[in-house]
């Protein structure tokens, strides 16, 4: 029975000219989006490799130099593109790609793509995630809005009943028929992406289980949408009204809910401006040790401590270079200040995140969006991971440079390190969080999505008994 219903519905769907046109357009758009994203991905990866190599070359060929000068000269670290960004670009466009690491200050990642684009890009871009998140649900609506209402309008519901069809079988049959075309498009897209990624030489840490899970998330999203579309279609007797209600739901879920969520989050837990944030840090830094100001009280205090500890009466007699030691101590203090303020900022981000999560229960779009970005490693959390790894590396670099001066020179002398010093610094390697870690962080949001599916299914199947 179910098989017959599916066959009949599919035949009807494929006969419909509007479906054929729109499915054709979506497939074409998906191919273009995929192709463009793939090209960009390859380009960015190439640029990343080049920049990384050239950066290291510049760093190693500094020649003879004072290590603290080298610290001010600084180094750049670059954020690698995650393989699954091919499917979901997430917030990558809005976060910078490189962090400048220097002495005394922690810098934000600079040069986001969005800042280099026109305002038009804020409409949304033709990327696979745009198709997956916005357009395919629309196809589901287009196919499913009249599944039940057409039986009433065409007076076929009585004939159906007289055939002895069971309510749940009819629902399942129609449900599957609505799903099949969209799921086919999605499957093609994911399989292509998987094959392309696994065949690339330099594809980073691509894993099939990640892409499979991503596929599962989108599948759940479409199941939820299908449930809702069929539910609306079974409630409303007229196809036109059913379509309008479906459309309103789509706009509310995909456009209005995210915007309202972001406005609520920002009003309740606002971010400081760059200026404010930097001033707070500068203010607190001033209170501590300044490596460039050996005359300050704090520095004098440290000097007295060191002299006492090593039982000598002059800095010259210390077994290490006190200036470098002072510099390192001040660096440690500053790093602490930065860590403190960034953790305050992270707290604020966490609170905003909670607002988004709590609103995920009003729109199935939100949990899908967040899960998709998280699995693709293109969400805000992965940006935090990267910038924290960069900061850790920065602190290590400073320790290495100040340590070099401290060990190899005496107090009062200007130490010039030999040219091969720079090679000894370990390279920055960023490893993005594993799938397990990502999943652990996002279990609650995944549960919300599952809950959406369960509740919408229950509602659909229990309100449909009359059919």
């Amino acid at each position, binding site marked *: 029975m179910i098989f017959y219903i599916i066959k009949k519905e599919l035949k009807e769907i494929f006969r419909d000219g509007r479906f054929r046109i729109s499915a054709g357009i979506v497939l074409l758009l998906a191919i273009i989006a995929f192709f463009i994203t793939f090209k960009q991905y390859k380009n960015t990866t190439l640029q990343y490799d080049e920049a990384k190599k050239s950066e290291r070359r510049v760093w190693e060929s500094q020649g003879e130099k004072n290590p603290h000068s080298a610290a001010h000269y600084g180094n750049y670290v670059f954020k690698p593109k995650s393989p699954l960004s091919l499917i979901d670009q997430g917030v990558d466009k809005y976060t910078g790609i490189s962090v400048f690491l220097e002495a005394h200050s922690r810098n934000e990642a600079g040069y986001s793509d969005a800042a280099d684009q026109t*305002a038009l890009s*804020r409409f949304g871009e033709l990327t696979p995630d745009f198709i997956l998140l916005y357009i395919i649900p629309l196809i589901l609506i287009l196919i499913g809005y009249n599944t039940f209402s057409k039986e009433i309008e065409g007076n076929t519901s009585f004939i159906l009943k007289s055939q002895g069809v069971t309510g749940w079988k009819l629902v399942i049959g129609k449900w599957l028929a609505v799903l099949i075309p969209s799921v086919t498009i999605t499957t093609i897209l994911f399989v292509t992406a998987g094959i392309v990624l696994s065949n690339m030489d330099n594809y980073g840490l691509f894993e099939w289980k990640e892409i499979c899970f991503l596929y599962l998330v989108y599948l759940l999203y479409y199941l939820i949408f299908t449930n809702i579309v069929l539910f609306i279609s079974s409630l409303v007797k007229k196809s*036109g009204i059913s379509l309008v209600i479906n459309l309103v739901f789509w706009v509310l879920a995909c*456009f209005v809910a995210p*915007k309202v969520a972001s406005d609520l989050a920002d009003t309740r837990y606002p971010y400081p*401006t760059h200026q404010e944030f930097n001033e707070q840090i500068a203010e607190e830094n001033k209170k501590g040790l300044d490596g460039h100001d050996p005359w300050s009280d704090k520095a004098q205090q440290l000097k007295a401590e060191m002299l006492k500890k090593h039982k000598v009466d002059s800095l010259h007699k210390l077994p290490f270079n006190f200036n470098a030691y002072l510099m390192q101590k001040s660096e440690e203090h500053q790093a602490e200040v930065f860590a403190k303020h960034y953790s305050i900022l992270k707290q604020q981000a966490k609170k905003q995140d909670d607002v988004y999560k709590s609103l995920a229960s009003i729109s199935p779009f939100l949990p899908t969006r967040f899960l998709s970005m998280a699995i693709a490693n293109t969400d805000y959390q992965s940006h935090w991971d990267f910038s924290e790894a960069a900061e850790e590396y920065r602190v290590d670099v400073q320790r290495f440079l100040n340590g070099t001066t401290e060990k190899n020179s005496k107090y009062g002398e200007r130490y010039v390190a030999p040219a091969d010093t720079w090679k000894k610094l370990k390279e920055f390697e960023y490893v993005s969080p594993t799938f397990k870690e990502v999943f652990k962080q996002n279990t609650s949001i995944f549960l919300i999505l599952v809950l959406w599916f369960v509740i919408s299914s229950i509602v659909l199947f229990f309100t449909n008994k009359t059919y």
Partner: protein
Amino acid sequence: MFTYNFKYELKSLLRSKWLLLLSLTLLIVVLFAGYNGKEKVEKRVSGLERVTSEVKEKDNAMLKILDSFEKGIKTNQNPRTLPSAPMNVAYGYPRVAAIPAKALTFIATGQSDLFTHFVKPSVYGDSFSMDYTELANPVQLLFGTFDLAFVIIYILPLIIIAFSYNIFSEEKEYGSLKLLASQPISIYQWLLQKTALRFFWLTLITLVVIVITLLFFGFEFGSNFSSFIQLISLVVAYILFWFAVVLLVNILVNNSAKNAVSLLAIWVFVILIIPAVVGQMANVFYPIPSRTKMISEVRELKEELSKKQDKILDNFLRDHPEYATKNGTKNYSFWHKYTASQDLIEEELKPLIDSYETQLQKQQEWVKLWQYSSPAIIMQQSFNNLAHTSTAHYQEYRSQVAVFSKEWRNFFKPLLYSNKDFTTSMYKELPSFKYEAPKSNSVILKVVILLVFSLIFLSIGRQIFNKKIGKGSVIV
């Protein structure tokens, strides 16, 4: 016929409670959007006020110290940071270079959530690579703001579609069209009037709601009347465009459900697909060169130049003999070398830096050219222009800041080289920054284009209607 039509439409609208529901929904939505916009603008204004007053305070303190110094009174200021040394002022007392909010800024967030609204360019640092991005949660940037522009560009057409997708087909489906056809009236005129009346009511409600919102958030009509008129005419033209589309679809398709599907498809195309495609094409045809590459190039150049700093200073003095010391002593400080090489760096990097701005410029020109492919793009561009939050505005701001920071450095350079003190009398001559908005195209052209679009659709509708009348397929 018109009065009957008017009365009938009004009665049926009032009875179905559509009008009430619509007005209330629009009012709430628009007020909420206005509130969001205002909140952002207020944060921006208060931030700017704070920083300006801080600078003022700091200036006053500096003037006091300078005054004491000139009178020979001793102060407890660290001699290394005395403001009588010009470079200490140039470095430690930068001016605020701000892009102020305008009266209509709150209607469209545009690019304003991406960028900072004031910088303090000092004599140290690269004005070309100054960071303009604002600290923000990227998720927020991704989702965007629920602002007035969003309501008008995205939501309003949907309201129009939901409001009148079956304006004609309904009559046919209820069988009342046959009754109407038997009357001695022109069906086309009747349909046109019916649509015009709905257009009238929706426009009236929208305008009233917008005016209430503007009043509520303290918009000054007197001094900003022209921007108000521009806003209103854009909104009216946009509503007209969508009604023309609705009318055309009603005539062409004339089946409620199919109408709704077609209108939905048009909405998706005009508002989602075309802008996304045009934007993507701008990126593909005029790609912004790699920033990672720029970083490496800047560093390599700087490293190269820093090794030759003494030579650069020599060359600089040869080019600018007025700066060389008269008695031939070569007692040049860090600042001498720095300012001399900074000029060179900027000069050398200018082509590279410009390549980003010109590419962005080209992207904008592309968008400008193709904006006519979708009324949604026209609206977004015009709203951002009215709100002063467009890409062009921020680009202009950046270039003006670059000019200003050079002016700031050049003000101190003669003092540095001639070894003169900075004095209280010079304070008034300090360059200050004033942002000049770029000349934006008037919206008249855009409104006219929207009207032309509507007229084309209306006349196509008329043609099809006539054809259908000829075939006798309008009523059955």
